[in-house]
């Protein structure tokens, strides 16, 4: 892989979710935003190897996708013969605060990313739909990858994503932040969604692999991103700690020679990812009281 290709895939990993959140918050059109961002990455893959990687890759991608959205909006407007109306809307949006200047700045984007996560994990969507949608929109995994992770057909996953997006639009789910009194329960729902995806990664699958560490890894990422932007809660902290502790043992769970499952007492502890489990030990020490941890534990079992 060349440096430019590497830069494109790194930008995808690091910026997809936040750029999508920014575009949705600006244009309030999930479908348009997603298509435009996909197009922008496609252009990046074509252009960066020739022109070099821009100084601010996220900014380049944002500008390119905004142009795509505006192109599409104009095309729709022409089709509907309502161009002046759309231009006015765009002008209003510009006047009432456009996107933040620097998409690389995490703190200014925290709200938009959290909004996107909460939208995907809205309680009016099933947990299964939420997990697929969150992996697609927040993490930016392509549909075939999600299908592979959930041992499902591409068409089935694509249909699930489409149905969920249609429900978001037709039911009028807001791209907004709930009040402080409801935020905690909504974030806890994200933890449920992430845990479903995580568990799906450890369900035995046909084939030589006993479990799919990649899916579990994406679930860990989803919850990590959420914790970054929403802050922790007893449930989120404890669950992320649990997931990290379990996930750090992934390489030791299967015997490389026989392919058999290796139980915890027999695992080669040198193959655990010790670097990944340093933080939760620290959180465990930080947890305010034992009672709160136990309460968080109860909600896993429900």
């Amino acid at each position: 892989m060349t440096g430019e290709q590497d830069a494109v895939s790194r930008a995808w990993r690091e910026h997809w979710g936040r750029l999508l959140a920014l575009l949705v918050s600006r244009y309030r059109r999930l479908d348009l935003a997603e298509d435009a961002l996909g197009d922008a990455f496609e252009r990046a893959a074509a252009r960066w190897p020739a022109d070099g990687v821009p100084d601010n890759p996220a900014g380049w991608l944002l500008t390119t996708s905004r142009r795509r959205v505006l192109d599409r909006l104009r095309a729709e407007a022409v089709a509907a013969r309502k161009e002046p109306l759309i231009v006015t809307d765009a002008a209003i949006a510009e006047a009432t605060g456009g996107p933040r200047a620097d998409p690389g700045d995490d703190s200014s984007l925290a709200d938009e990313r959290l909004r996107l996560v909460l939208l995907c994990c809205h309680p009016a969507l099933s947990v299964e739909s939420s997990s697929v949608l969150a992996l697609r929109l927040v993490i930016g995994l392509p549909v075939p990858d999600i299908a592979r992770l959930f041992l499902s057909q591409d068409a089935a996953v694509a249909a699930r994503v489409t149905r969920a997006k249609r429900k978001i639009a037709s039911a009028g789910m807001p791209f907004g932040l709930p009040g402080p009194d409801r935020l905690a329960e909504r974030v806890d729902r994200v933890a449920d969604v992430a845990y479903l995806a995580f568990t799906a990664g450890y369900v035995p699958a046909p084939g030589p692999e006993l479990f799919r560490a990649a899916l579990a890894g994406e679930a860990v990422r989803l919850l990590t991103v959420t914790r970054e932007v929403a802050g922790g809660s007893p449930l989120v902290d404890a669950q992320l700690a649990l997931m990290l502790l379990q996930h750090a043992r992934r390489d030791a769970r299967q015997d490389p020679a026989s392919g058999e499952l290796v139980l915890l007492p027999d695992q080669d502890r040198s193959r655990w990812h010790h670097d990944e489990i340093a933080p939760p030990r620290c959180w465990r020490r930080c947890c305010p009281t034992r009672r709160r941890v136990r309460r968080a534990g109860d909600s896993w079992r429900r």
Partner: protein
Amino acid sequence: MKYLVLMYGEESRWERATAQERETVMQAHNAFDAAVREGARMLGGEALAEAASSSTLRPAAAGGSRQVTDGPYAEAVEQLGGFYLVEAPDLDEMIALCQRLPDYYTIEIRPTVNVDL
């Protein structure tokens, strides 16, 4: 957005209810109504007579007329007991408003669509 709020519940529960329990239910509806008028728009709503009083018209065969049958379409313990039509900013607002309705109801929130012909 306009939402139809459909309220389902066990019919016998209302019949069995004491005067005080009925008062609590009415207070919940009044609180809902007041909250809707504050943060959204009330477009209408009614309480419905018992499902047994309902008449169902089945689809007609080609060229024929509809058959009238007695009772509701589906046999179920929980029956549709009333509805509201509310214009609210979004689903979360609608859900928050519905939290005020009597707590034993099952509530369905259905968005309406504009049909342009």
